[in-house]
């Protein structure tokens, strides 16, 4: 061992208490980095294994492709496997359930992961192959060779024809994968039937394919580009292209995943760097004399740099592997706990998980974590190394008392008005002013994690399960109508027919109101109009005056009174619909629409968009006053479209049963229950919160090391000063108050920075998330609980630290402390 290594080793031992803080910070950082990488790898591999085990493996899907184009596509060198699919019909079953009839080529069957369990694929016109799920839905038990009579509606584009009956022979039984078998409602028909039902010229197929020329280094982006380029070459519009992103993600490299992992790791590393840098920065300033002495006895600047470097790297060499080891244990226990409930599923996907790949990726994660941790340490050490190499020999013999001449040139900055009242607070204030760079650095580094906590906590608090449930169900129970267009078998679902015989009657409303536990019922009206610009039929909702707050309170941009909306010439548009459906519609624009009032004379109308609002997702995108729709709702028709039922409590099973009983005879009505949506989202939120809390808790611990270091080194560095204060009469109680006050200022500064910068950043994040529809975020909620938790944690920590430091100071006599630097 050379002299540099020996000095570095001895220094590590000598400053072991301080090095312990750095060691803990390194341990936590490496633990967190490894855990993020390893859990990310395991989850991803499990997810990919289950995708490869169960999910369809097509990569591109083109809609509306003629047989000729399909042939050209099949001949393209970019296409490997390909197949055709055509939905020809459906059978509607009770409870809004369907069985679908498809023609598929063998390749399509294979890519959709359907397997023939028995028999053969349908060949003649009256043959079908059926899945167990479809048979179950139809309420029949089947075996090959059985005859079955089925009633179905043929689909011509989006138009459903009249129901027709046909006898079929079951040629085969299809099997889907484990998860979806019972849910699959597919019936396969022969090409002959397809040709009987459709004129061969009008048949447009769906073309499913996998691309060729893939290798291990092919990225998802490259495959997506190939799929889009191929579509472009054959004049297939982008809207008719689908990408199987699950399959691509499971088998190819997605640069976005790496970007997210990289961003998280950067945050962890940044917290680590700030903490370690801050600890070293403080420490190196305490050791100027020590390094000065080494310079005086002949050590070069390069050797001084190496001492600082080796001290830091020595700590990392011990702490980082420990952190990774702890990460492995944490990951193993975590995985066992997570899979305890779903062990059978885990066993089934196990063959799809490549164990060598898993081992290699874990080794990779460990090596990468080590690399990142060492890099983090190196970055933290750069400035302290520069400080160490600049220390001169004179620093060793420099002693404040030895200077007879003024040390610093007199300037106005060194003059300040003296106070006649010296209190503890005054001493602390002056001390912090004097070491303002360090104080600021500490406050900023402690705030960094807090700001991150604020941003994440804002996201969590904004993804409130209640808001999500409110988005999907307005009222504790919501009754909506089933309106369809161009379904020949169910003309009663056409809007113009629904309003003639609307089941949402005033009588029903009164009956619902009379149910015990129902507080109120709000009725909304709607008309359906064709919007030529969108080539689509769109719902325009009318809000009754007694519920005008629903409309007015949600306006986010523009101004309008409810009275002004009554004319029907002004509308409020949902801001997300404006962006997504209407392609950047603006307040002040005009929407044209055509209403078919059933008299065969379509009515052309125009409405000015006077405001944007934030409305529940389940509602349509255009709103106005109910009165404004009156002229558009035909005479004697009932345009009620939604009943929102408000209960005395969030959920009552008896109330639900009674509402169900009232509407069960009405096939056009559907019941939505707020509680169901709430519970589903609550479970998702809980998982998200736990993961975020663990992550932020560990990250917070890294930064707490910084606070401990600052306060400990503040006392260490001022041992002599504190000793002197005690020599001139400062009591232990006054010392404790001084330390507490000092820590309190750090806490106040930190909380102030967290709350100001954190709030600003979290509002920006909220606006971005809301604008992009992330996690269903819609309403901003200040994360008060997180702020309380942070404030309480910091205050408790500060009190404990002050008490600990005051006690530790007492262990030494005053004279020992005064002698500290002598």
């Amino acid at each position, binding site marked *: 061992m050379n002299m540099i290594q020996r000095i570095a080793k001895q220094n590590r031992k000598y400053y072991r208490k301080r090095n312990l803080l750095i060691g803990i910070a390194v341990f936590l950082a490496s633990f967190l980095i490894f855990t993020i990488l390893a859990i990310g790898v395991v989850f991803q591999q499990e997810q990919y294994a289950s995708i490869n085990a169960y999910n369809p493996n097509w990569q591109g899907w083109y809609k509306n492709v003629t047989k000729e184009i399909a042939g050209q596509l099949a001949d393209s060198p970019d296409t490997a496997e390909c197949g055709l699919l055509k939905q020809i019909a459906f059978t509607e079953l009770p409870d809004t359930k369907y069985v679908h009839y498809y023609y598929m080529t063998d390749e399509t069957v294979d890519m959709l992961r359907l397997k023939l369990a028995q028999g053969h694929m349908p060949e003649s016109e009256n043959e079908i192959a059926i899945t167990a799920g479809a048979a179950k839905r139809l309420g029949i038990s089947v075996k090959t060779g059985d005859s079955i009579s089925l009633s179905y509606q043929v689909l011509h584009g989006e138009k459903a024809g009249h129901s027709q009956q046909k006898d079929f022979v079951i040629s085969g039984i299809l099997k889907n994968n484990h998860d979806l078998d019972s849910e699959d409602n597919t019936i396969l028909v022969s090409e002959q039937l397809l040709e009987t039902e459709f004129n061969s010229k009008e048949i447009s197929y769906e073309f499913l394919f996998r691309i060729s020329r893939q290798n291990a280094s092919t990225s998802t982006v490259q495959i997506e580009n190939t799929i889009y380029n191929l579509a472009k070459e054959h004049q297939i519009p982008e809207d008719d292209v689908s990408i199987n992103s699950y399959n691509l993600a499971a088998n190819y490299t997605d640069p976005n995943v790496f970007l997210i992992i990289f961003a998280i790791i950067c945050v962890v590393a940044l917290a680590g760097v700030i903490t370690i840098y801050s600890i070293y920065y403080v420490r190196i300033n305490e050791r100027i004399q020590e390094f000065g002495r080494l310079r005086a006895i002949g050590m070069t600047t390069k050797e001084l740099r190496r001492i600082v470097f080796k001290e830091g790297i020595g700590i990392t060499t011990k702490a980082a592997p420990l952190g990774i080891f702890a990460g492995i244990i944490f990951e193993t226990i975590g995985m066992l706990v997570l899979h305890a409930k779903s062990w059978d599923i885990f066993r089934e996907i196990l063959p799809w998980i490549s164990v060598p790949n898993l081992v290699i990726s874990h080794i990779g994660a460990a090596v990468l974590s080590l690399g990142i941790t060492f890099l983090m340490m190196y970055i933290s050490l750069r400035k302290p190394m520069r400080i160490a190499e600049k220390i001169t020999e004179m620093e060793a013999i420099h*002693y*404040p*008392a*030895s*200077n*007879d*001449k*003024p*040390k*610093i040139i*007199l300037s106005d900055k*060194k*003059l*300040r*008005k*003296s*106070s*006649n*009242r*010296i*209190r503890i607070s*005054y*001493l602390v204030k*002056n*001390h912090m*002013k*004097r070491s303002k760079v360090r104080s600021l650095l500490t406050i900023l580094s402690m705030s960094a994690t807090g700001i991150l906590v604020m941003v994440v906590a804002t996201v969590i608090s904004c993804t409130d399960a209640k808001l999500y449930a409110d988005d999907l169900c307005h009222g504790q129970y919501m009754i909506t109508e089933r309106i369809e267009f161009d379904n020949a078998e169910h003309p009663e679902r056409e809007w113009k027919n629904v309003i003639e015989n609307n089941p949402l009657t005033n009588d029903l409303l009164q009956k619902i109101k009379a149910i015990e536990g129902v507080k109120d019922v709000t009725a909304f009206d709607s008309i359906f109009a064709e919007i030529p610009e969108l080539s689509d039929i769109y719902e325009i909702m009318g809000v009754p005056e007694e519920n005008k707050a629903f409309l007015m309170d949600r306006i986010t941009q523009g101004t309008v009174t409810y009275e002004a909306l009554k004319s029907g010439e002004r509308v409020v548009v949902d801001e997300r619909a404006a962006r997504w459906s209407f392609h950047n519609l603006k307040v002040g624009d005009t929407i044209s629409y055509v209403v078919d009032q059933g008299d065969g004379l379509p009515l052309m109308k125009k409405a000015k968009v006077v405001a944007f609002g934030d409305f529940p997702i389940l509602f349509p995108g255009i709103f106005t006053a109910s009165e404004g729709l009156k002229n558009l709702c035909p005479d004697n028709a009932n345009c009620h479209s939604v009943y929102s039922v408000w209960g005395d409590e969030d959920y009552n099973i008896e109330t639900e049963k009674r509402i169900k009983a009232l509407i069960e005879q009405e096939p056009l009505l559907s019941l939505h229950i707020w509680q169901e949506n709430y519970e589903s989202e609550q479970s998702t939120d809980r998982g998200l919160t736990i993961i975020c809390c663990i992550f932020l808790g560990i990250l917070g611990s890294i930064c707490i090391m910084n606070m401990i270091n600052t306060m400990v080194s503040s006392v260490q560095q001022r041992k*002599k*000063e504190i000793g*002197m*204060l*005690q*020599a*001139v*009469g*400062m*009591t*232990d*109680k*006054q010392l404790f108050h001084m330390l507490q006050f000092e820590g309190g200022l750090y806490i106040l500064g930190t909380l102030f920075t967290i709350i100001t910068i954190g709030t600003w950043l979290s509002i920006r994040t909220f606006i971005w998330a809301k604008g992009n529809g992330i996690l269903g975020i819609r309403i901003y909620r200040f994360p008060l609980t997180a702020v309380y938790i942070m404030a309480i944690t910091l205050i408790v920590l500060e009190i404990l630290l002050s008490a600990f430091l005051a006690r530790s100071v*007492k262990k030494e*006599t*005053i*004279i*020992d402390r*005064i002698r500290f630097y*002598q």
Partner: protein
Amino acid sequence: METIVKVENLIKYYGTKDNPVKAVDQIDLEIERGLFTVIAGRSGSGKSTLLHLMGGLDRPDSGKVYIGEQDIFELNRNELAKFRRRKIGFVFQDFNLIPSLTVWENIILPMGLEGKNIDKTAIEKLLSNVGLSDKKDMLPDTLSGGQKQRCAIARAMAANPAIILADEPTGNLDSQTGLEIVTLLKQSVKNYGQTLVMITHDKSIARIADSAIVIKDGKVVGRT
């Protein structure tokens, strides 16, 4: 004359349990009020330890120290701290000024800790006596060594303590400045009727003292 400091059978060990070093070895002595007493001796003789014990900055292994009628080691830590700020003033070799406080604030610090209102006129007079009237709003970093020590002397005297303990106050000063400081100290304590106990190994300073105690190997070996 009246005794201001009485030391009885004072013993203080340093070092480890296995290898203890007796820094103060059964010292008995008395110091009279109003005099300038010098404690002299070679490095490591135990003179600083004795002074620190007399000021209650360190605790003895056995023995008693009386300041006036009070056995200072009978007081608890807080009582001792308060006693110190009222009755004892310290001057150290390396000044020990608080760097974040101005000259004025350093001087009134003991009174500030006591929560007392200060007598501005008296402090201004004290500042004038030590020659720092024009430096009152300056920070210690900007002063020369001699000026720092003058500030430390003013701080020690500001609360008008009964006794001033000075631990080699000239150790970091050149001989001319050192002599000026000692003269100032002697004159000041005389003016304010205080007792000065000073450690020094400078014979010229020892010569101007009223009394001298010589320490060797932790024992009093001479007294004049």
